[in-house]
């Protein structure tokens, strides 16, 4: 087809031609084109296929509501399916591909579905495909899945950057059309901090397609001037290419700025999209109104277009709709189009107006057919004719373009995001925003106002009054007279059209037509929400922007009620779809979560540690040496070395809380289930913390550094939780206690020095005497290091069961101290060990971690029953711990487990069955919570929670791992494999 580009006019830059392709075919457009306008200018009508019947589809709108013209652009990791051609700015080299067709857009096998359409009505799939049962996953569903969907997404990673921003303002103006510009200027001139957001590349909205003049300036020039003034004001942020997609609690708005989506090759230093979270004291919704399609047969044939869209392509992009254009309009919008078409010398075949006296002011040359409707459009891949019915007669006219206008629906999407329901206005035949919205004021066309002059005035008034309410001396700006404004005689409401023969589409993309809605009503799905779900009307990528109102009107007719009674479906974010990339921002890859590194990370790295992610931390797992074949060999060596010599392990990631004040001991006494009130100064004590429901929450050692100063340690995983909990206790439960808490996890580097030679090694850097008498088991004191050059805290506590210490030094010194210790210990065989060896050592000793403290165990389950204070009047968990179920004799209790044959092993997560019992749920006795190969024992050992476990030491059982097909004969035993008399601890 030849070019539809008019020789002059439009807001395109003809000095900047842009080459692009569609389905590989080279085409040319200009700077300022959208992909849609460029396609139209190239005479391209057929741009897509519909979802179900694969009907040929063309460009229907010029904006965000486009249901048909969806294409795939970009390549590799930048592939973007379902891109609206109407919203995509043209750039040089843009390669657009059509979707949902095979083998080609022109010849699409899927179109055969159209022949089967009598059997593919609304919800047909709920009534069949049930036999035979196995066919669903194997035959029907794969076929349906392949046929469904629109574009094809890539499986490659996105190479581009994204970012997020917060912004705060007095007034957010959503939409920079006439209403929004007037509102923004009226507020901004008074000094209010204003953010204006508009989805288009330039401000102006409807002004950019408008031929009226404002105070003698053309509408686009007026828009340009307003935008320039806003840009120049320091208190204004004008965001173009920015869609406000959601209104959230607290007057928080979500918006996405398409920073580089209009460029062929995005600059790597700039994000392609930016998510804005805008906190606005007030907001104006100036989102305009959406023109409604009319529901007649073949209303989806390429060449049929919304009247406003046709006018926009004509005026803004200088694209002629066709050689013979008809206009089917129920309101005066069609006449503005007619006037503009004729002004450009284009022929109008007919104007069809169902009103008796529509177009009273029309002075053009076109044939005006009143009291008439279009019943059917004809043509395959392009419109060729229309049937016009008037007074019982049907006339066929040859046309190649048809403009539609069924009236306007205010775009109130955002106004309904916080639960407000739209209100039907019989007078305006439209749903309006919920009344009395707090913080958001619809204005202009979005509030049901028609006409350019009225929108300017309304915007100016609302912008000024919102600013005034915030204390700014604002007044509405008068913009001068508007010439050529479209008249606004009442529209005729036309839901169904009598005499229609072909498929009359309501939801274009999802192929929902009039009869589908009737069928839904007939079958009992007449509620607007049920009809939507049953027919899929309004569930396409445009979320019913065009279709919902017609669906509601048709449901109302079928049910014999008013559209207000039918009501709308729920408006929910997102106004238009938003990419994962934009929502995720920079929080992906290595920035998905923050990284926490211990102060000893560098020390561990230098000694060759293999690191493992543990929550946000990287912990040293083991320290392989040359010649070691696998991790087990390294870990075994580390374990034996701790048992025989000494090892150094980084435990800095344990949670650490400084607790001080006269009531610190009292707080601890209430937070732990065991007693803390009388802990002597200079001593550490193991503490068990319960939840209020009586289950064990966390454990750790807490030391009394001074009379009113304690140092608590928590597990790594629960460090943050315990801190929050302790603060809860101190602030919310017992604010009368005089106590202060500070998390000092990051302030201290902490290292365990464990093994028979640990005292000797440590003594090399500690100034105080570490002899057993001077520094006995559970001593906890501040110590002087390196001859007084540094002070730290030393605790004689042991996770491994060996003679052991934990040394805490200020974080910045951790690396040097660890290095000094490593060096000092070299002669005595001290080597670093990681969490894997630590885990083996603690299992050997029978110490529990969160493998055992799984949130469903009581102190008694872990063998700590005697620790629970019977004398304390109160502690967290005391009351609920008394419940029968928490004291039932058959509760799983901690026990040790070893294989009968040391050559066999088992794994954590395997279950315990009585010896010889069948593997059934009834026979499930418990499970292995922790397991490891113990070089000390010479076999795998485990801890387990087993029913009656404490009474079953010595019993033979089966460790059952059905997942791995492993069944190990094993024996239950006491959960201590090493030094049960604790002699080593006191050595």
């Amino acid at each position, binding site marked *: 087809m030849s070019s539809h580009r008019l020789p002059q006019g439009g807001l395109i830059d003809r000095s900047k031609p842009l080459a692009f392709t569609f389905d590989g075919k080279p085409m040319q457009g200009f700077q300022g084109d959208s992909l849609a306008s460029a396609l139209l200018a190239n005479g391209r009508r057929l741009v897509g296929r519909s979802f179900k019947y694969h009907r040929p589809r063309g460009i229907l709108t010029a904006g965000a509501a486009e249901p048909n013209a969806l294409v795939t652009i970009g390549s590799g990791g930048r592939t973007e399916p379902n891109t609206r051609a109407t919203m995509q700015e043209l750039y040089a080299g843009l390669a657009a591909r059509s979707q949902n067709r095979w083998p080609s857009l022109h010849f699409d096998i899927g179109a055969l579905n159209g022949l089967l359409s009598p059997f593919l009505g609304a919800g047909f799939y709920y009534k069949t495909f049930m036999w035979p049962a196995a066919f669903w996953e194997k035959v029907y569903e794969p076929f349906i899945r392949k046929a469904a969907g629109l574009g094809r997404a890539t499986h490659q990673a996105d190479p581009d950057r994204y970012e997020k921003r917060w912004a705060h303002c007095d007034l957010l103006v959503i939409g920079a059309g006439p209403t929004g510009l007037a509102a923004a200027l009226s507020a901004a001139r008074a000094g209010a901090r204003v953010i204006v957001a508009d989805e288009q590349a330039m401000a102006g909205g409807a002004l950019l397609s408008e031929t009226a003049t404002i105070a003698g300036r053309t509408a686009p020039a007026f828009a340009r001037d307003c935008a320039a003034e806003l840009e120049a004001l320091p208190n204004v942020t004008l965001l173009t290419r920015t869609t406000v997609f959601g209104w959230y*609690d*607290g007057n928080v708005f979500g918006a996405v700025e398409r920073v580089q989506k209009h460029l062929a090759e995005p600059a790597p230093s700039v994000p392609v999209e930016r998510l804005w979270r805008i*906190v606005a004291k007030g907001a104006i919704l100036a989102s305009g109104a959406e023109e409604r399609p009319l529901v007649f047969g073949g209303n989806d044939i390429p060449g049929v277009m919304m009247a406003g869209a046709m006018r926009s392509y004509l005026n803004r992009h200088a694209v002629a709709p066709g050689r013979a254009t008809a206009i089917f309009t129920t309101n005066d919008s069609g006449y503005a189009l007619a006037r503009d078409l004729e002004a450009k010398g284009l022929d109008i075949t007919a104007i069809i107006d169902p009103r008796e006296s529509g177009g009273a002011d029309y002075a053009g040359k076109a044939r005006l057919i009143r009291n008439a409707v279009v019943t059917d459009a004809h043509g395959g891949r392009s419109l060729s004719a229309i049937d016009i019915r008037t007074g019982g007669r049907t006339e066929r006219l040859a046309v190649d373009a048809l403009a539609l206008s069924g009236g306007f629906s205010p775009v109130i999407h955002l106004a309904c995001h916080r639960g407000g329901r739209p209100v039907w206005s019989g007078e305006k035949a439209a749903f309006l925003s919920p009344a009395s919205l707090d913080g958001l004021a619809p204005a202009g066309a979005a509030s049901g106002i028609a006409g350019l002059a009225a929108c300017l005035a309304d915007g100016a008034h609302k912008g000024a009054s919102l600013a005034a309410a915030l204390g700014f001396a604002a007044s509405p700006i008068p913009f001068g007279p508007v010439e050529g404004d479209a008249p606004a005689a009442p529209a005729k409401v036309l839901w169904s059209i009598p005499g229609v023969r072909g498929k009359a589409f309501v939801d274009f993309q999802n192929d929902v037509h009039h009869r589908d809605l009737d069928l839904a009503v007939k079958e009992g799905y007449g509620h607007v929400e049920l009809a939507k779900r049953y027919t899929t009307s309004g569930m396409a990528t445009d979320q019913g922007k065009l279709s919902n109102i017609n669906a509601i009107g048709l449901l109302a007719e079928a049910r014999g009620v008013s559209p207000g009674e039918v009501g709308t479906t729920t408006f929910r974010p997102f106004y238009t779809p938003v990419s994962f990339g934009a929502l995720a921002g920079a929080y992906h890859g290595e920035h998905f979560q923050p990284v926490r590194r211990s102060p000893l990370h560098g020390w561990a790295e230098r000694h060759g540690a293999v690191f493992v992610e543990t929550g946000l931390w990287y912990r040293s797992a083991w320290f392989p040496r040359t010649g070691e074949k696998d991790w087990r060999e390294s870990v075994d060596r580390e374990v034996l070395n701790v048992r025989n010599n000494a090892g150094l392990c980084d435990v800095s990631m344990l949670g650490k809380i400084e607790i001080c004040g006269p009531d610190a001991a009292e707080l601890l006494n209430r937070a732990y289930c065991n007693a803390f009130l009388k802990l002597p100064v200079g001593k550490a004590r193991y503490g068990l913390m319960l939840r*209020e429901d009586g289950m064990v929450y966390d454990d750790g050692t807490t030391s009394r550094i001074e009379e009113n100063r304690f140092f608590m340690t928590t597990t790594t995983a629960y460090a943050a939780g315990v801190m*929050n909990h302790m*603060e809860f206790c101190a602030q*919310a439960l017992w*604010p009368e206690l005089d106590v202060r808490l500070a998390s000092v996890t990051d302030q201290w580097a902490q290292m365990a020095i464990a093994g028979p030679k640990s005292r000797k090694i440590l003594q090399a850097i500690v100034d105080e005497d570490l002899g057993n008498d001077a520094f006995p088991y559970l001593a906890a004191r501040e110590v002087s290091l390196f001859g007084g050059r540094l002070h730290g805290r030393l605790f004689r506590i042991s996770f491994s069961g060996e003679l052991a210490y934990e040394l805490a030094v200020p974080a910045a010194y951790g690396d040097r101290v660890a290095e000094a210790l490593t060096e000092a210990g070299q002669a005595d065989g001290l080597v670093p060990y990681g969490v894997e060896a630590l885990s083996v050592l603690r299992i050997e000793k029978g110490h529990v971690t969160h493998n055992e403290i799984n949130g469903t165990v009581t102190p008694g389950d872990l063998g700590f029953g005697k620790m629970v204070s019977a004398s304390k*009047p109160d502690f967290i968990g005391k*009351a609920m711990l008394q419940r029968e179920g928490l004291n039932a004799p058959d509760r799983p209790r901690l026990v040790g487990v070893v294989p009968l044959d040391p050559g066999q092993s088992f794994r954590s997560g395997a279950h315990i069955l009585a010896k010889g019992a069948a593997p059934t749920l009834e026979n499930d006795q418990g499970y292995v919570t922790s397991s490891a190969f113990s070089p000390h024992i010479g076999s795998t050992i485990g801890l387990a929670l087993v029913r009656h476990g404490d009474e079953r030491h010595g019993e033979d059982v089966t460790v059952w791992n059905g997942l791995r097909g492993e069944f190990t004969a094993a024996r239950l035993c006491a959960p201590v494999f090493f030094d049960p008399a604790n002699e080593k601890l006191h050595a």
Partner: protein
Amino acid sequence: MASLVPCPHCGPRPKEEFTIKGAALPRPAPTADPAEWFDYVYLRDNPRGSYAEYWHHTAGCRRWLVVSRDTITHQVAACRDAAAQGHAA
């Protein structure tokens, strides 16, 4: 209002700075009847409408707050430091 929470110490702050615990209920006396303890730990009014919850300003002042919110509109009617609760109640 749950996108922004008006912390009495820090001003309006985004929701993700906070940790939410749940119903702000007075803890029974240690000597209270087991039934009263059970109510406290397990039963909830859970109303449509006004509700008081414990929120912790974890990434802010680290104070526990009592946030009185409407569970339908999410409007915050009041937000006070939890330590002040004893006096108010």
